């Protein structure tokens, strides 16, 4: 099965106890780009990201990553795939029983044969990258929402992933903090050249980091293209969505 796109969702269907969420999702993502998926809450954005990570399995359809089909893979092989992908969860999902440093070190401590000193160095470099140096001994409960997102990004980057998934990275943050998080997303893509998928219902945030954008509704992609193309869309839902609240 030849697949030229770096990441490709092919005709994905997914329901939860008879409630359809994804209904024929098709989506292609190029290597190195930042694609923003815009859509209302509950339209299936998080589910889409979790399917790419192999955390959820589609009812039908196939997902390809770098030419390899990941649907139907064994959990063991999926673990290898997940090492290429870092995910920033919506609520940050830091382990609240571990310190900030232990959170960032988690994947390395679990799976690499690096020494404690090497891991410490990676942890402090990653914390520095997200402008959180000196916080390694704090507990997640001592951090603000924006700081949690930064630590979660540092944790997701521990394995130097090729792909970063951001689930609502600015939702619930004040506008100034949101701006700094968006700046961090751009810095990450600039310095590491990662492929990024950002999922959000916030237009301004989305457009400020996107190379391309897609609009999702009812478990399908309605429109995908450059920001200009999206803004010129004639699709009725897309126009309503972009117009924002009246």
């Amino acid at each position, binding site marked *: 099965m030849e697949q030229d796109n770096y990441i490709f969702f092919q005709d994905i269907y997914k329901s939860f106890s008879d409630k359809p969420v994804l209904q024929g999702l098709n989506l292609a993502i190029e290597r190195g780009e930042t694609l923003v998926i815009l859509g209302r809450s509950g339209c299936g954005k998080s589910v889409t990201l979790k399917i790419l990570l192999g955390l959820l399995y589609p009812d039908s359809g196939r997902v390809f990553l770098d030419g390899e089909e990941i649907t139907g893979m064994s959990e063991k092989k999926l673990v290898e795939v997940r090492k290429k992908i870092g995910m920033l*969860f919506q609520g940050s999902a830091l382990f609240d029983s571990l310190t900030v440093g232990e959170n960032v070190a988690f994947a390395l401590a679990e799976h690499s044969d690096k020494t404690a000193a090497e891991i410490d160095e990676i942890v402090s470099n990653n914390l520095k990258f997200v402008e959180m140096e000196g916080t390694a001994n704090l507990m997640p409960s001592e951090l603000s929402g924006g700081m949690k997102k930064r630590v979660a990004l540092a944790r997701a980057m521990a394995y130097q992933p090729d792909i970063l998934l951001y689930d609502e990275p600015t939702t619930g943050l004040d506008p100034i903090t949101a701006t700094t998080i968006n700046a961090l997303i751009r810095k990450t893509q600039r310095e590491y050249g990662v492929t990024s998928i950002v999922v959000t219902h916030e237009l301004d945030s989305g457009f400020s980091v996107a190379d391309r954008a897609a609009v999702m509704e009812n478990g399908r992609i309605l429109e995908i293209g450059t920001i200009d193309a999206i803004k010129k869309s004639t699709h009725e839902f897309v126009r309503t969505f972009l117009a924002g609240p009246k």
Partner: protein
Amino acid sequence: MKAHFHWFLDFLHHVHGITEMFGRSLALSFIKPFYLRETVEQMYHIGFKSLSIVLMTSTFTGLVLAMQFGHEMSVFGAKMYTSSVLVVSLVRELGPVIISLVVAGRVGAGITAELGSMAVTEQIDAMRALGTNPYKKLAATRFLALSITLPLLVAIGDLCGMLGGWLVSVTSLGISSDYYWSNAAHYLFFSDIFAGLLKPFIFAMTIASISCYLGFSVTGGTKGVGEATTRSVVVSSILIFILDFLITKVTLGAI
């Protein structure tokens, strides 16, 4: 009719989930990585921290049993056999059941609440995303820790119960200390001790499987965590009674 059918499907779904959790935890307990540190930490949380409540409940059980048995049996002029009846019923029956119920309330609820809040805050997803198997790191470690510590807690509780019984026997039943212990030892067989420790081992695996399964499958935010925690205690308690009946039926006479 349709409503009943749904209820039945739900029931089967949960039975399947609990059985699957049991199988997974058991199998993963023997597969690397072993997470020794987590297991020991869990043994401390589950075992050591339950010690005070286990000491309390079992000592008072022994006190009350001795009073009741002493009173009833003196009616038949069999007061001297108080300790044998007490010790055997304590070791075979009351120790395992009461302490397992206490642990299901304290530890089972704690496991469901902790894993449940990890599930609704996506920490379990995050763990999988970071390449770690949460069934191994979270469920199997608790399963193993509980299976080891509950029989130990029951053994300690049995001793406290016997001491409670002894206290009542010597102070208010007029039974001598020597007689209390020799009568107890004479009627307590190895098979009683074996059956009395087999039960908490099986109850431990049951409590762990139920509380981990219910914790992992929480949906619906903090409200869901609360509901699952309550359900965890209720389901574990009922199953302890049912399994106790079955194990007693099988072991009584056989061993």
